[in-house]
């Protein structure tokens, strides 16, 4: 059976304030879903409802077909959870903390040592395996938290901003871990504020704002739908180019819909025609001998969609 996360009419009110408003979402298969939304949108609220840390005012949710509200034990049996950087008992070492998790989760005793060593290796904490967690930095603790969500090799992962507090290398490592998990048929549901991270590892995105789901779709569909058939690339030049040259030589190129000069040596080019359009554009650009040194897909595509969708709600 494919892994799944499902919410139906999931609603949470705190007093008269509605933090989550009738969320209907069905996520299924082996993939990574990015859960986006501004501060206070209701992401953590959703993840806490999904793990029975808080209770819905209305509606409910299921993990792998099991109602979280009716049977948290069975629903969470094959899920790994990391929500809001929890604290591990400070007197424990990573080895002991993960040992406790593995034990309570019922990982066979014979597998425990290997699994713990593996996940501590994955989060690059092997050298700290026997140091007290209480003396660790925030980022180090977060790495242990990630390890403890992975130790039983769960089919479903619920991660709330997993790269919070991590250094750039740590963030890259988290991406690598998530990519690996996807390859081994896991379902990952991950909230994040880092759009480049989402573009990098997620197959699908869900965007919520003020407790309401704005859309849930594949990354390509979202980009295509909101860009009106436009794509964007960032072009880096070896030599500065004047605005006149841009207007005279770049803008008229076939399939170009608009050019924005980010700085004297960087251009953001919007174009039509998908991959074919991009091929023609790059060939034409190189043909101009402007000193093109790189053409990269703009990471801002999702950002633009994000900003346009969020501001619409204001």
């Amino acid at each position: 059976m494919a892994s799944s996360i499902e919410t139906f009419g999931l609603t949470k009110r705190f007093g008269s304030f509605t933090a989550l408003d009738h969320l209907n979402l069905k996520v299924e298969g082996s993939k990574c879903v990015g859960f986006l939304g501004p501060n206070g949108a209701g992401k953590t609220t959703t993840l806490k409802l999904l793990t029975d840390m808080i209770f819905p005012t209305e509606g409910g949710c299921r993990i792998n077909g099991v109602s979280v509200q009716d049977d948290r034990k069975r629903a969470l049996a094959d899920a790994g959870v990391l929500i809001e950087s929890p604290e591990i008992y400070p007197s424990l070492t990573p080895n002991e903390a993960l040992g406790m998790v593995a034990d309570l989760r019922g990982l066979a005793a014979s597998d425990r040592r290997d699994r713990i060593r593996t996940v501590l290796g994955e989060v690059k904490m092997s050298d700290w395996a026997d140091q007290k967690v209480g003396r660790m930095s925030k980022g180090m603790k977060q790495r242990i938290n990630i390890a403890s969500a992975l130790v039983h090799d769960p089919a479903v992962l619920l991660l709330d901003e997993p790269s919070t507090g991590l250094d750039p290398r740590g963030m890259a490592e988290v991406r690598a871990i998530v990519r690996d998990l996807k390859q081994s048929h896991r379902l990952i549901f991950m909230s994040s504020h880092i759009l480049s991270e989402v573009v990098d590892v997620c197959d699908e995105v869900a965007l919520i704002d003020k407790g309401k789901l704005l859309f849930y779709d594949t990354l390509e569909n979202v980009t295509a739908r909101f860009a009106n058939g436009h794509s964007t690339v960032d072009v880096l030049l070896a030599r500065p180019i004047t605005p006149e040259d841009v207007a005279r030589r770049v803008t008229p190129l076939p399939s170009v819909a608009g050019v924005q000069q980010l700085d004297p040596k960087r251009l953001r080019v919007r174009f039509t025609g998908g991959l074919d359009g991009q091929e023609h554009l790059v060939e034409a650009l190189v043909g101009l001998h402007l000193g093109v040194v790189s053409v990269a897909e703009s990471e801002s595509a999702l950002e633009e969609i994000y900003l346009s969708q969020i501001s619409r709600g204001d």
Partner: protein
Amino acid sequence: MASATVDAPAGRLQVPGSMQQVLKLTRYQLREYIRSRRFVALAAIVLVIGAILTAVVAHFRGAVISTNLAYYGTFWGGGVVFVIVLAAVFFGGDAIAGEFQNKTGYFLMGLPMRRATVYVGKFIAAFVASVAMMLLFLAILVGNGAYYFGVNLLPWQIWLSLVLALLYLAAVLGATFLFSSLFKVSAYGFVLTALLFLIGFSLIQDVVTMLVKIEPWMIISYADSTIGEVFSTNVLWGLTGTVTQSTIGMGPHAVTTTTYTAGVGEGIVIMLVYLVVTAAAGLWLFEREEFT
């Protein structure tokens, strides 16, 4: 390419039964008590209390230890109640609130366990740790008792008294856990337990006795006297208490005080009711507590 890997075989994970999880959690919690030095700290306090007691007994000798029954009734009966309350405060005062305040509960809540499992696991751990303190205190008393009366004179009542003390401990811990799950700040649980059991309940008991003039059967501390009472020569076993009236002074200025003493059966019932009610209420609360 992604399809080259297959799902791990089903059944690689067998989440333990709830009872097993309770015991595992109990073990980890006990380790935590030892790691956090709470265990050692309270053991040191009990040893100090034991030392003071030993000195007092040695100093007054005949006056306070006319018989072995009187000795155990006074020193064990009086002392263990205090040890129990201290243990409850140390091991139970922040058991639930601390999980919220320190955010360690968020770690546990991600695991496939019923909420009751967490509550009961921590309760048993607190109980076991407290029993260790009680036994340490008992050892000191029996040591003294053996010195003055010989080992053969360990009265049989001590075993009954121990059972009553265990029951009282369970009832006090039940209340402590209930207080602890009422708050999300650890300090409140500590303070409320200590205040109520060290001062509050006996104060209420006095008020009920003197002003309302009824038997204070609804107060848990009324039952704790049975722990020492069983050593008395005219012990009451029944389900009802006795009233003693004593008059001080004479004529119009005479003051009559009324003292109620719980029967042993009555004490057991009171303690059982407190245990069941507080445990049920605490569990009910914790089942509904949100980790916001």
